[in-house]
């Protein structure tokens, strides 16, 4: 038993180490390809652009971010974002540039406004409604189960049953 547990523990450690090695390899690979993609660009702008485009949806492949997508349009948009950053535009101005053209749909983090109230507050409304229903249900159930004290006869019988069970 003990030996088995120890070897299992050993295996677990090996796997953990393997996992870390793989993680390091993958991170390095990512860093290398990321460098290869834009060798001549200002790293500061690239970093800022990456941070911004990671919050944006690519319109061609809608489940990808603008940072990750390899679609032609995503490349063109990244080019334009890069240019605007070099021209000194703020992130807010660049986001406005994109939403003016493609709507709030490009934002993975939609703004709070009339059309998105349901999206933002709906879950909380459902939570409150659910808790209220649950609370009222439990309260009513407690009222239905009324405490009726045992008569002395019943108590005697209950004690006898308990005793015989233990015995």
């Amino acid at each position, binding site marked *: 038993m003990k030996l088995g547990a120890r070897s299992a523990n050993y295996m677990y450690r090996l796997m953990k180490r393997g996992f870390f090695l793989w993680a390091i390899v993958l991170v390095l690979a990512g860093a290398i390809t990321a460098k290869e993609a834009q060798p001549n660009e200002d790293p500061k702008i690239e970093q800022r652009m990456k941070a911004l485009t990671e919050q944006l949806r690519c*319109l061609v492949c*809608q489940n990808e971010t603008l940072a990750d997508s390899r679609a032609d349009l995503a490349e063109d948009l990244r080019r334009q974002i890069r240019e605007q950053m070099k021209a000194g535009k703020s992130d807010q101005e660049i986001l406005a540039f994109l939403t003016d053209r493609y709507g709030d749909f490009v934002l993975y983090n939609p703004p709070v406004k009339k059309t998105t109230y349901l999206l933002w507050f709906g879950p909380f409304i459902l939570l409150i409604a659910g808790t209220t229903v649950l609370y009222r249900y439990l309260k009513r159930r407690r009222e239905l189960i009324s405490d009726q004290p045992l008569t002395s006869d019943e108590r005697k019988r209950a004690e006898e049953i308990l005793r015989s069970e233990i015995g």
Partner: protein
Amino acid sequence: MNKFLLLPLVLFIALVGFLLIGLHRDPHEVPSPLINKPAPDFKLSQLREPNKTFTPQEMRGKVWVLNFWGTWCVACREEHPLLLEYSKTGAVPIYGVDYKDDRAAAMQMLDEEGDPYTLTASDPDGRVSIDYGVYGAPESYLIDRNGVIRFKQIGPITRDVWQKEILPRAKQLNQ
């Protein structure tokens, strides 16, 4: 009590209803924020005569369709014969923007298969198309006399779209 027992069922049916509606909607059709806004201005060189330019300013006072297409775009080829047919009726002039394309290839396609466009402008780096919020060619915009976008079709124009969306609107705008 019975009322509450039915609640999960009602909620479930409502959920199924939403999912059913969702099935029939195309997530690729993103509502354009440009509807009822002035069509973005641009100045592009013409496809056939590169030293001449085209700008939507020239179209003031006319109701017209601006169609973004490219020879690389399969759905545009699908739409092409219909555009040819509708351009011949002369109901609404169709202007083209050749989007991220090779000039020679575009002219060759128009020569071989027919040219539905009154004029085609060339947008080789796609900047004007981005200003119009194009994300999947073909896309078409119906623009009124004051240069305001009144309708946008994402994807190929079909007979249904032309007859039910574009023509009636164009007729009304021309009145």
